[in-house]
């Protein structure tokens, strides 16, 4: 069976025809990533407060 290939240029040309895949919930995923980022940032801040060098 022949392999279906696309050059990078062909792939890039099709960008305007973007279709969101079915069963994909972009909001759910983006919310997850933001939530995790937020928690990690808070922890980092908390850690700095306790263990950071000197008082700024």
């Amino acid at each position, binding site marked *: 069976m022949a392999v279906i290939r696309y050059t990078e240029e062909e792939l890039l040309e099709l960008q305007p025809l*973007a279709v*969101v895949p079915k069963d994909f919930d972009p909001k759910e995923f983006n919310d997850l990533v933001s939530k995790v980022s937020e928690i990690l940032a808070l922890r980092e801040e908390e850690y700095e407060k306790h263990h950071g060098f000197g008082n700024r």
Partner: protein
Amino acid sequence: MSVEEVTQKTEQIDLSADQKQTVKHPLNTEWTLWYTKPQIDPSEDWSSLLRPIAKISSVEEFWGFYSCIPRASTLPPKSDYHLFRNDIRPEWEDPANSKGGKWSVFISDSKKPVLDELWLKLMLSAIGELLEEDDSVAQEVNGVVFNCKKKACKFGIWTKSLDNEETLKKIGLKFKNLVDTKLSTPVNEEQQQNSHPRKPEEIVFQ
């Protein structure tokens, strides 16, 4: 009117609005995007951190999910994106990976703007089947990976086998060229043996 234009016109006329939603430029195989969530709570084990995000079967669907997911450079540390063929899990334990190997390259944090371009290029090379040019060995590439660490990032290509040296070298060379076009200073190839018995030999750039 060119032949290309006529063909396009015919395509447009033939397709109902509903059919337009369906596959127009099918990919050689389906691909699944996986995300590894950083561990927040010690009770979360690896298998619960790794989750499939979207499955794509056309070029249009690739751009559909790409346009609405966070850029690689904005992911929190210890996150990974994995784009793997069909239902292959991005783990060594998956039978499709267990006899395979991996090309990888580390990029320091300072090259951040380049990360997104590199990751996109790597994904396009995978779905376009551009990493292997010989049809008889196609699908040697199981998946491509972006690992985000705190101080560095790692890009990888996972292969199905370890024994097809010629094919693996070609894939490695394509990978090197791809990385070199995005980085100002070319990376050096260097082989590194991995001591982990369950992990196959790891070939690392730099």
